[in-house]
């Protein structure tokens, strides 16, 4: 926490070293979250890239009320949500167009080295509605409180709790189903 305060202070003062350290310190957490939320390595990289670029632009105005990690995770969750909406729009626009966009994107393996297990989990998580997926992951993997998630998603705490409960039950059914197979 103290190191983060120093890093933020240095970052606001224009230190590239501090920015690099923040990157090194949190990149894995952010990437993991982005990968699970988007279930797409290219999107995950883009999300994290955009979060860091925006973060770099925010030095003057940045005023953290919580801790740095939560802040960055929330930024990733927000970006991932937008990306998800964007992808939905692409899918609605038509398969040919979407394929053309996909073919222009990078090969995931080129950028992110993720384990097979992570892929498996990302695929399982992708079976949940996006809001439930985000809620479960933010709470269990990013350690965010329901109140924080509600704030980030712009919904009530009860809605978040509901999404969490439904999401977890569905995940449990999926996993139990896998075991039965």
């Amino acid at each position: 926490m103290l190191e983060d305060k120093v890093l933020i202070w240095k970052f606001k003062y224009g230190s590239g070293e501090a920015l690099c350290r923040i990157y090194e310190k949190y990149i894995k957490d952010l990437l993991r979250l982005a990968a699970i939320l988007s279930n797409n390595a290219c999107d995950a990289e883009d999300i994290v890239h955009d979060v860091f670029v925006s973060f770099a632009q925010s030095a003057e105005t940045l005023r953290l009320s919580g801790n740095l990690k939560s802040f960055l995770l929330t930024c990733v969750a927000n970006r991932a949500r937008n990306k998800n909406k964007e992808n939905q729009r692409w899918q609605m626009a038509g398969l040919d167009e979407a394929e053309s966009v996909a073919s222009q994107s990078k090969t995931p393996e080129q950028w992110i080295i993720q384990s097979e297990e992570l892929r498996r989990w990302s695929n399982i998580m992708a079976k949940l509605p996006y809001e439930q997926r985000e809620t479960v992951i933010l709470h269990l993997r990013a350690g965010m409180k329901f109140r924080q998630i509600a704030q980030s998603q712009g919904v009530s705490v009860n809605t978040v709790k509901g999404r969490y409960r439904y999401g977890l039950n569905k995940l449990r059914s999926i996993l139990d189903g896998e075991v039965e197979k």
Partner: protein
Amino acid sequence: MKPIENFEKLIRDLHVLDINTSAEMDRRILHDTLKVQKKCKRTKLAETQPDIWRKIMKSSITKLAVAAILVVIGLGILSIIDTGSKSGLVWAQVARNVEASPGVIWRLRGTGSRDPDDDWPNGYKITWRSAAITRTDNYRGGQIYRTIYLNYDAKTVIWVAHDAQKYSKEAMSDEQVQRAQADKERWTDPRSLLNLCLSVEHHELSQKIINGVLCEGIEAMAPGGITGRMWIAVETGYPVLVEVEAIDDKGIRHTSTLDQFQWNVDLLAEDVEPEIPADYQSLGLEGEMKILSEQGKKELLKVEEILRDGTIAWKVHVYKYELSDGQTKEMREGGDGMPVYSQDQFKEFKPKLEEFRQLKKAGPGEYLGTSEQAVEGRVFTFKREKYLLSDGTEVIWSVGTPKDGQ
């Protein structure tokens, strides 16, 4: 079905969700991020800026007003602003007193909706300021917990976390010094506030005794709903109390109070620089090395060079630093002539570099002999080896060590 708690634990503890970035991705993101950071020149040392000034800054009309004041000061015609007063206090003289004071010390307190991690409502800050230095001590519950010291001449910044017994010393670039000075002059200085008060619509307040001193005041209403009150000691002609109030968009009232002024003091850098107790731990050895590097207090131990088809493709100097905590540390730094690669150029070069490294690991290349060369005023003996890459590229690996002190 498993109990839900077990299932939650399963997801929480999933260590299988490991992920790593590739070097390519790190390079791309860091390159773009650092580029953006460099572009954003208006970054500020926020710790030295009370919220109220940030609020003032948000008002574009106020910005214009202050810009106008700065022009007025620059032209040396502040004397035209002279409200006079019943007791004979000449406000233009007050402005001149303030300008002429070599150093000033004051206390700042604030109220309002603040960062919960900040020290509100129990904290205060003591600031020492002269043309060459600014030091701010942050107090909470009467105990000092943070010190920030900027020395514009020495281009150093020292950050001390007393509560954690840690500190950091770093060099400032010229750009950072300019930025810090600009911020100081504009927004964190009672002089600026006085000039602001005098430049906008203001009226005199009735005389008042503050801490046994007869004072006269003015109240200024700046655009954007900001009110400033400044009280001046009739006898000395220096400010003794400054109060600034603003209401934010959410209707929350913010106040800043500057008091306990000591004007006309000589603040020598060596007196004001924070003393760092021996048991405090340095947070940034790199920062200290940067300072030592700029001061030339480092020893060149080795020079490594890669020539690719006769051109320098890689050059590294290995330096030894002796740090203030007694440790010595070696640091690899880009040497003179080290090319700057664009992302695409490096992408092209990287496979060749990797191949060369593998070849070198496998065994020595063709020995080309030794030569002597002066580097940074010292004679180095260079041993050279040649490697041939699969695409025919000729790579010469050269390592230089000091001739006199191997």
